[in-house]
């Protein structure tokens, strides 16, 4: 096999992204017949920088959360990494290969699971579709049977794979989709909202499975999800993207310390009827405990005041929920005046 790209060594990242850009040209017009006719003569387009010069490395075996609001550029990035989209600029390698070349060897080593799309045959049991994947990925029968049985056991879908896919619930379908996507034992997993629309129990099961797959095979995982529980459970590192640019790349704990503008103080008083509004915003109160939201820089001073002025039975200081932190990060992206103009209109 001819090799015209470097083979990754043990110290090389599994994924390397350098100044990656993707620009779409999108037609647009105002509503109404007049504008419809006008657009026949004069076509108006908008250039959208979906991904605007992002760079990061992901080490082999790392599980990274890729976060951002809708339209941030997450899925576009994942598609470029999986070879479905050509980058407009910049460079990227996955397992040493250039994804846009879509070489068979590269495609045999990755998978992209999209929570809102299914690839299994609708009308037949998933077990039959698995056979098709065996043939496509040229998996020897013995290895195929071992992997299939292992994945089926891990996701507890023994009964489900014998039913036609159309008869499965959304969560059941997602589980068998994941089995189908991993039969070739990919070394890099791109998971785009794998738990979307699933109930809490099913979400937990899929999280546990991804963690186990990563542990067992040392696979690299890049995960997008709107459910922060997915990210907290699986990812030590997160990359936050907004308007096609990276706002944060680092540890999950670092995200809170850098972006959380406040902390929460949980106070248990001897007399729980006392009003603590003077110390901070009361965001929760029950029979025993009052939860206050206070500015992060004021936390020490307010805690000291509470302890000295009130009869405190117990006190805890916590970072805000990660959902709130992410909201703050996204809001900081919206407000960041340093961001260049992303969209240019051309006709």
């Amino acid at each position, binding site marked *: 096999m001819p090799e015209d790209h470097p*083979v990754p*060594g043990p110290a090389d990242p599994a994924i390397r992204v350098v100044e990656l850009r993707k620009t779409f040209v999108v037609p647009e017009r105002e509503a109404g017949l007049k504008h419809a006719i006008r657009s026949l003569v004069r076509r108006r387009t908008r250039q959208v920088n979906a991904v605007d010069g992002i760079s990061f490395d992901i080490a082999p*075996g790392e599980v990274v959360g890729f976060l951002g609001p809708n339209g941030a550029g997450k899925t576009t990035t994942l598609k470029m990494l999986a070879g479905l989209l050509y980058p407009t600029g910049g460079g990227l390698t996955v397992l040493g290969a250039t994804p846009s070349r879509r070489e*068979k060897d590269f*495609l045999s080593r990755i998978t992209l699971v999209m929570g809102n*799309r299914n690839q299994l045959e609708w009308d037949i049991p998933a077990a039959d579709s698995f*056979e*098709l994947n*065996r043939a496509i990925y040229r998996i020897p029968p013995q290895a195929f049977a071992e992997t299939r049985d292992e994945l089926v056991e891990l996701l507890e879908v023994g009964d489900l794979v014998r039913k036609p896919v159309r008869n499965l619930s959304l969560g059941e379908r997602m589980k068998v989709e994941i089995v189908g996507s991993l039969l070739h034992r990919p070394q890099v997993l791109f998971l785009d909202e794998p738990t979307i629309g699933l109930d809490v129990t099913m979400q937990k099961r899929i999280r546990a499975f991804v963690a186990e797959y990563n542990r067992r095979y040392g696979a690299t995982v890049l995960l997008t999800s709107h459910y922060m529980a997915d990210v907290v459970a699986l990812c030590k590192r997160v990359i936050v993207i907004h308007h096609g640019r990276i706002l944060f790349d680092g540890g999950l704990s670092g995200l809170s310390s850098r972006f959380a503008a406040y902390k929460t103080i949980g106070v248990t008083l001897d007399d729980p009827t006392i009003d603590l509004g003077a110390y901070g915003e009361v965001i929760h109160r029950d029979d025993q405990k009052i939860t206050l939201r206070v500015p992060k820089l004021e936390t020490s001073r307010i805690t000291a005041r509470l302890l000295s002025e009130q009869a405190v039975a117990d006190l805890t200081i916590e970072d805000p929920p990660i959902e709130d932190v992410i909201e703050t990060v996204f809001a900081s992206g919206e407000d960041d005046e340093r961001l260049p103009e992303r969209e240019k209109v051309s006709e």
Partner: protein
Amino acid sequence: MSAVVERSGRPAAPGLPDRPRVGRVRSMVDLYLTEMRTAIAVQFQYRVANYFYMIGMVAEPVIYLVVWSSVARSQGGAVGGYTPGEFAAYYIVWTLVRNINIVFTPYGWEWRIQKGQLSGQLLRPIHPIHYDLGYFAGMKFVVLVLWLPIAAILSLAFHPTLQPSGLGIGVFFVALWGAYLIRSLNMWVLGMITFWTTRVSAIFELYMALELIFSGRLVPLTLLPGWAQGVANFLPFQWTFGFPINALVGKLSTTQLLEGLGMQALWIGIGATIIHFVWRAGIRRFSSVGN
């Protein structure tokens, strides 16, 4: 087993063992057989619907058959060299050829792109045309089983006259798959226009109109005016309908039978070449725009 197993040729990523793979040729045969089994399983899920679909499809050739048989009788027993019995044979074989000719259409391409199915196929290390060729080939086995009773009833009703040679029968079975390949490739070429416009249906309708006239679908080609037969010789359509039908009905000489297979091979080559180049351009376009 070791003789048919190869490795990828690239070192695995750190910490991951490289995995053996089945040999390339064996895996391709395996893929086609598995696709065909899958198609058969899917089609048997819808056997009743399929049957009604086929019965509905019979209406078209029966109308042609009744009309042309009447014309033949009114002109003293034959028209354009076809007797009513030969028209019956022509249009009964037509029903099988038509079913073999059902392939993935541009409508399917529109759906495939709009629903993101093509993206899923592009993630796999195999050209998507193999899915379509294998899958629709598998469907034909179901079609054949369903077609036999229909052919029997039509034969009882219309008394076909066939005079096939041994070579003609052999060529017919090869030509059926040649027709299937030509039409599959033609539809792929049309379908790939979806990479540039999502409304390829209009072009597809034009194709169907030309095919109806110049393929032998509407009427045996020998009944067309000379100029139309001349035009048909420069188009692929007759090799997907008229040629396989006439091979079995017994209307072709040995030379014509062998030339016909050669023409089928030529059009398969042309179709495959066009697909090779258009696919590369189309996929580049698709990957730039995305879905």
